């Protein structure tokens, strides 16, 4: 677990970030389909948790045992597990790794909960900064509209209820998402996000995303080579 962060890897890392409802998961899914069907060494890393960590998280959330610090740490534990088990070996093996959400999700969410920004960046200091981070930018009202029009069952932590912003869960969600967006916007320059206008159609956006990836990544390198 030593200084792998600045090590040169043959692989490349592409991450998508944005608010819930920004359409980022749809876009990265389409990118995955495209690269896979074209025959590239590509891997899609989902925001799934390891079983052990998932159990602890579920227990903590259900019993509301989590403070901002332990909430942040338990997610960092989960991320480290996925990073060292999956993402890092794939990068070393020369894969194109696609991540639906990455450390910036934690930076935004945990900072809103009151964790120190500098501490968070050090905590995740072992994680490599993506070669391309696509940020799907959407006005807050549009994002909220997309999520809330389906009248979803918002979850306690997802709506930031632990912050006691508002006793109404929908109202709390609105305020929370607004703050998360604020955190994201401060990271655009800090981490060199590529900002996309997520009000465009899915098809338009996908065209731009594919072009950006072709510009930034030497796709020829990732073409599958079969051994005789």
């Amino acid at each position, binding site marked *: 677990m030593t200084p792998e962060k600045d090590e040169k890897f043959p692989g490349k890392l592409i991450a998508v970030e944005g608010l819930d409802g920004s359409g980022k998961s749809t876009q990265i899914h389409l990118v995955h389909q495209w690269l896979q069907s074209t025959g590239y060494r590509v891997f899609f890393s989902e925001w799934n948790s390891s079983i052990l960590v998932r159990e602890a998280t579920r227990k903590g959330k259900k019993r509301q045992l989590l403070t901002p610090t332990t909430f942040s740490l*338990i997610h960092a534990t989960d991320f480290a597990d996925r990073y060292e088990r999956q993402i890092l070996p794939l990068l070393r093996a020369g894969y194109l790794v696609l991540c639906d959400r990455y450390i910036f999700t934690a930076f935004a969410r945990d900072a809103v909960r009151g964790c120190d920004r500098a501490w968070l960046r050090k905590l995740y200091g072992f994680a490599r900064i993506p070669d391309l981070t696509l940020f799907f930018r959407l006005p807050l009202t549009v994002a909220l509209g997309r999520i809330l029009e389906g009248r979803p069952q918002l979850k306690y932590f997802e709506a930031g209820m632990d912050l006691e912003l508002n006793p109404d869960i929908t109202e709390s969600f609105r305020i929370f998402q607004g703050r998360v967006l604020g955190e994201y916007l401060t990271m655009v320059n800090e981490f060199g996000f590529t900002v996309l206008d997520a009000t465009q159609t899915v098809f338009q956006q996908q065209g731009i995303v594919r072009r950006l990836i072709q510009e930034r990544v030497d796709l020829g390198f990732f073409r599958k080579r079969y051994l005789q």
Partner: protein
Amino acid sequence: MSLKRTYGMALAGVDLRKLSGTLIAIEGPDSSGRSTQIALLTRWLEQRGHAVAQVELRRSDLVGAELERAKQGNILSPRTLSLFYATDFYDQLENRIVPALRAGFVVLADRYIYTLMARAIVRGAEPEWAASVYSMAIVPDAVFYMTISLATLVQRTFQTHSELDYWESGMDCGLSRDWFQSFVRYQRKIRSEFFKMQTKYAFELVNANRSIAAVDRDLRGRIQLVLDRAEKPETRRVRRGRVN
């Protein structure tokens, strides 16, 4: 009452000025006598009228059980395991140590962040990273590090457990296939990390090769000084040791 500090980073939601208790950390390898001494100190402190709270690693409500399971399986990477331990530590810090200190207890910590940092560093973590993870930890009023010769440690380990522990032997570190050899090498590495941290974190060394009673007398004397200092802030000595 001595004013508490953290190792550089504020602990969200905690007013350090309200922590009137005393935090004492006891470090040292397994079988160095930590828990025996803590039991004796607890009795002594309670007899003298101090309320005592004990904490130890891997006992949090949040992830204690999961950590225990993770240890059994050895399925997590070193970084993941050390972050899991950090989660356990902060859960206990926020939910046990801080409330006890607020209530004026003497908190006896059976190991503290130093063991966690040393273990992570021996397994390849960068020392700065380990320190930053724990930079919100409260600086104890005293840290006692029980030093013991490897020969005595081996004897005591066999006496109490009749076998070596997988993790205390660092068997996950690939130092040797041979358990005994791995134990010796691992314990040396941990000890060397502790000595590297000694000045920065102001460890007080306690010679644990002596009898239980002798170590107990020694610790009582030193803890009495800590308590006296806490009672009389005007004569408080500035503690040695540098904080980030």
